[in-house]
């Protein structure tokens, strides 16, 4: 495998004083106001910032070389569990790049952007159909953002019913870390309940916290072990029986899209990660979209404004308007949310259709089960049940062959051109490896990945230095401990 040199200098290091790239033409209008008239003195800097001075070609080469060091779904298999790193069809990018959608100004009056509003309205209806919810807000910009909005909705709902004493949000010990974080950010006390021996939330323990203090229970289904919650109806009865709400974390919706609906499982609030399930390139921080949906009794509390469709008798075409409710928790994001992500999601949904989406989840589950069947001798599942779209392996089995640990296997996979799976999550599994192949990988890739794992395990037997993997990548084993203990976060111009 040929990879570019990792020792790419910083732009500051190739900077030469006075070197320029593009030059702005001279100002041909009078300056209306000087900056010093607009900003207070303390905000004005006394000297120019130290920006790198490079030619255009140098900048192009710098970023092109860096981009060749990237690992992406467009360059290789990326089985990062819970992240759903599937192929994002290029047609969705094309559609999001249509000038009429791309060039819309966020301050344009609603009358001038009826087409863009129609896209938002259609997407909201599609998500409602897929999730079994009454309404969605498209504003949240990520899954955790949708969770936070959902928790605010939960708080507003209980307050409206005169039950502000519902201060507890319950999460299972297998939950994504964002669940307790979102609940805590919204002011709730977080209570953790354990999982049972089959990987389900422990029903007995859950019932013991279902009382007049319960605001909501947050669940992922399938959960972070990749396993279907087998007692969903009992969970729903227990939560609703004591007046609590049930929140669906949609991070794993790729396992169920087009087949099962959170609303039908009893969930009152739900977010969907559009960048995972509905194709937007993601990883390394976005942009994403995490629309939050609700059942009918919670619709008035959704973030506002939302797009409503108005059909008037005698008018050929419907009009789209922005509306708010007095009970709304308010805005959670400027303008319409991450509009281009929303466009891609609608394009993905419309190009697949309902049957196509059911095939997506079916193939995602099939791929995970096939890969587990290939790998289970070296990587047995933490809980031996049929997984959904991903599975969690117990990496302690690797130690049978010597000193190989989960992290070493992950690093060795990089040498073979594969992205590592998610490791050390969920926290309830020792040496956890969470593997999500997604529906878009051909069978040969799954087999090549399994063969690579086998080869690493076999060749590492007796090897005394699995801690030195990877050996072929531009940058070798990172000193993660030192980086975490003594982070250097700032490049100093004097060095």
């Amino acid at each position, binding site marked *: 495998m040929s990879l570019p040199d990792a020792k790419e200098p910083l732009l500051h290091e190739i900077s030469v004083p006075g070197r320029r790239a593009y030059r702005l033409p001279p100002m041909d209008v009078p300056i209306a106001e000087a900056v010093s008239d607009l900003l207070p003195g303390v905000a004005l800097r006394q000297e120019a910032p130290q920006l790198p001075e490079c030619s255009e070609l140098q900048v192009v080469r710098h970023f092109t070389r860096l981009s060749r060091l990237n690992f992406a779904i467009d360059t290789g298999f990326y089985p990062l569990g819970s992240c759903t790193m599937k192929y994002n069809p290029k047609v969705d990018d094309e559609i999001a790049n249509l000038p009429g959608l791309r060039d819309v100004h966020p301050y344009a009056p609603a009358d001038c952007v009826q087409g863009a509003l129609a896209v938002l309205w259609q997407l909201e209806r599609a998500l409602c159909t897929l999730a079994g919810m009454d309404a969605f807000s498209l504003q949240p910009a990520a899954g955790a953002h949708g969770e936070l909005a959902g928790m605010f909705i939960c708080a507003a709902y209980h307050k409206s019913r005169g039950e502000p004493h519902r201060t507890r949000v319950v999460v299972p010990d297998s939950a994504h870390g964002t669940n307790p974080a979102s609940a805590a950010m919204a002011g709730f006390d977080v209570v953790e309940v354990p999982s049972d021996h089959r990987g389900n939330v422990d029903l007995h323990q859950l019932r013991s916290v279902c009382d007049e203090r319960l605001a909501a229970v947050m669940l992922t289904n399938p959960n972070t072990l990749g396993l279907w919650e087998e007692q969903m109806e009992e969970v729903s009865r227990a939560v609703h029986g004591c007046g609590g709400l049930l929140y669906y974390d949609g991070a794993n919706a790729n396992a169920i899209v087009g087949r099962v609906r959170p609303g039908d499982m009893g969930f009152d609030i739900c977010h969907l990660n559009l960048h995972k399930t509905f194709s937007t390139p993601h990883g390394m921080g976005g942009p994403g979209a995490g629309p939050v949906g609700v059942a009918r009794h919670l619709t008035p509390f959704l973030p506002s404004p939302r797009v409503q469709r108005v059909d008037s008798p005698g008018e050929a075409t419907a009009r789209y308007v922005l509306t708010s409710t007095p009970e709304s928790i308010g805005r959670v994001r400027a303008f319409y949310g991450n509009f281009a992500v929303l466009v891609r999601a609608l394009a993905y949904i419309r190009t697949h259709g309902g049957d196509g989406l059911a095939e997506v989840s079916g193939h995602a589950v099939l791929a995970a089960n096939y890969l587990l069947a290939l790998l289970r001798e070296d990587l047995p599942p933490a809980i031996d049940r049929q997984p959904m779209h991903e599975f969690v392996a117990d990496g302690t089995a690797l130690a049978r062959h010597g000193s190989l640990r989960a992290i070493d296997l992950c690093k060795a996979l990089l040498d073979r051109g594969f992205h590592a799976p998610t490791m*050390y999550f969920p*926290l309830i599994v*020792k040496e956890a490896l969470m593997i999500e192949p997604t529906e878009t990988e051909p069978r040969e890739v799954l087999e090549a990945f399994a063969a690579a794992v086998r080869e690493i395990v076999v060749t590492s037997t007796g090897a005394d230095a699995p801690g030195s993997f990877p050996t072929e990548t531009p940058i070798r084993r990172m000193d*993660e*401990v030192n980086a*975490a*203990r003594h982070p250097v976060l700032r490049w100093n111009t004097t060095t």
Partner: protein
Amino acid sequence: MEEYPDDRRYTEEHEWIQSENGQQGGVQAVVGITDHAQCALGDIVFVELPAIGSDLHQGEAFGTVESVKSVSDLYAPASGRVVAINAALNEHPEYVNEDPYGRGWMVRIELTAPAELDRLLDAGAYERLVSGS
């Protein structure tokens, strides 16, 4: 080989507590995490401890320990007021890995209910707990 000294008590959440009688009448105790815990967590990179003077309640979280693998809550083995914290862990979180029962101690508390310690595990019971898991 993991060690469990028998001069202290243990929790099921993998903290240890060692009481020291006699200082100004009250009973003080030192709290840390076990050898088994530091082994399972791996290289520890950050320990977040409560402020001196804050009150701990048995079984409730009082801080966090972050390793390269995960972030975990620390649970109070007993109730009491924090009278000292191991500030050296700010610069040297690796002490918890190197010497979990000594230099890796975390907080010293003035116990409000010393009898709470009787409900905790002794070294033998703790060893059976972790060897069974």
